[in-house]
């Protein structure tokens, strides 16, 4: 796999900042934005492609965490508890497959909603 280009890294940076701004908790939001900026700034002069790829992979994993957690921690206005459970099952976390989602729906009888979280780039 070719090493990540500058454009890809920048796109990743922008995506991470965009997702971070969706944390509803002030402290998490400010921390995420600050940490992402500082981390990318700190590593901007890294030249070794292997190291760049390692950092990019880590950033992608963290982007996944931010996506899942900014959704999980958002105020549940319209949605009820099912959204939280199913969103965390459906997203590509380290483990789950959507097939297992129905097994642990805890007896919710309503059909699985199509949460916005499933729309991925």
């Amino acid at each position, binding site marked *: 796999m070719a090493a990540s280009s500058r454009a890809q890294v920048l796109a990743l940076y922008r995506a991470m900042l965009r997702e971070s*701004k*969706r*944390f*509803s*908790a*002030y*402290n*998490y939001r*400010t*921390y*995420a934005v*600050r*940490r992402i900026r*500082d981390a990318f700034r700190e590593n901007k002069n890294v030249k070794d492609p292997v190291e760049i790829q390692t950092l990019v992979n880590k950033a992608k994993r*963290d982007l996944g*965490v*931010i996506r*899942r*957690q*900014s*959704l*999980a*921690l*958002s*105020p*549940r*206005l*319209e*949605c*009820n*508890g*099912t*959204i*939280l*459970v199913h969103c*965390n*099952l459906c997203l590509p*976390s*380290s*483990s*789950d497959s959507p097939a*297992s989602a129905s097994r*642990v729906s805890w007896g919710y009888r309503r059909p699985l909603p199509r*949460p*916005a979280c499933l729309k991925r780039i």
Partner: protein
Amino acid sequence: MLLRAAWRRAAVAVTAAPGPKPAAPTRGLRLRVGDHAPQSAVPADTAAAPEAGPVLRPLYMDVQATTPLDPRVLDAMLPYLINYYGNPHSRTHAYGWESEAAMERARQQVASLIGADPREIIFTSGATESNNIAIKGVARFYRSRKKHLITTQTEHKCVLDSCRSLEAEGFQVTYLPVQKSGIIDLKELEAAIQPDTSLVSVMTVNNEIGVKQPIAEIGRICSSRKVYFHTDAAQAVGKIPLDVNDMKIDLMSISGHKIYGPKGVGAIYIRRRPRVRVEALQSGGGQERGMRSGTVPTPLVVGLGAACEVAQQEMEYDHKRISKLSERLIQNIMKSLPDVVMNGDPKHHYPGCINLSFAYVEGESLLMALKDVALSSGSACTSASLEPSYVLRAIGTDEDLAHSSIRFGIGRFTTEEEVDYTVEKCIQHVKRLREMSPLWEMVQDGIDLKSIKWTQH
């Protein structure tokens, strides 16, 4: 779709925050759209969604009491709360195997943070249980030959209480005094060690005044005198670099909820080379090498492991940032207010825990005045009683200054705006309370308060 729209509404509510002026007092207050039963997974009546608008919550500046969960930690825990719910001690099926694998991975993460071997980490329900196991377990195992323990006067309540209960069993305990700086005198420690001393227990970073004890030196002294050394590192793990081999630590207590992990979990490090024998406090099925029976709570220990891993990666960045914020807080308060004393040695000090005494102001009233900042005077364990903290008494603070102390906690998630807001409010209220204080008036007139003879009523 609905969810996104709801977010946008919430986001708009957040950004259209109260107060047109950015420097307005409400700027520092976080907004959180409150729902009154945030934990209920029961399908709520969505027609009755919060209509009153955002609910304001105080700024959190009490990280020594507990810390918020890091989102990365929650992300690691969730699969084990939802799908992978097996008992890690079930050896016969995949649920047990995957749970056990997660538990062992967490053990490795905790061990690598403190430079230990994974086999030396035992998971417990928190630092209190770890302290109990360390002190009571070691004392009771060597009870036939060794009857003496040493600890300090500024230890956490659970350590002091364990020692007190051991005294009732017939052990002798020496409570070492601390100097004015909060640090123990190493010569006194050496003098206190007797041939029948089994354990020395000194905490690494104090939770009330933030003082760092000279752990490496104490470890050296203890290992040369063949005495076990236990340290309660609940406030220090993940914040300052610790290595159990360099510092010759034999037992160490770790707390989950002080390092941005979940509450209800902790760990104890028990050295294997040379082996430290500990009598188990909790009997049962022999889990955790027989030292702590009971099912290991997989989601919690996975959270603890993740918290340790994150702490290891973020230690340098956090330390630099917290030091900067701490400097800022102290400098800004000290330059605007006279007669403010920082408790604890300024050099051997963890910057995230700042204990300030404001003379001529009553601590509780200052806490009540700073109602939109979550602060504490003394520790959470003793916050219910009205007595001044025993730690402050041990470092020789005057009674009146001990009553006026406030502990500011700065953590990973604390922002510059929060610190500035806290400083501004603190200065404002201290000035206001001092205006009302007759003692302050007398001091302004040049009267020495110590020379006053108060009449009896």
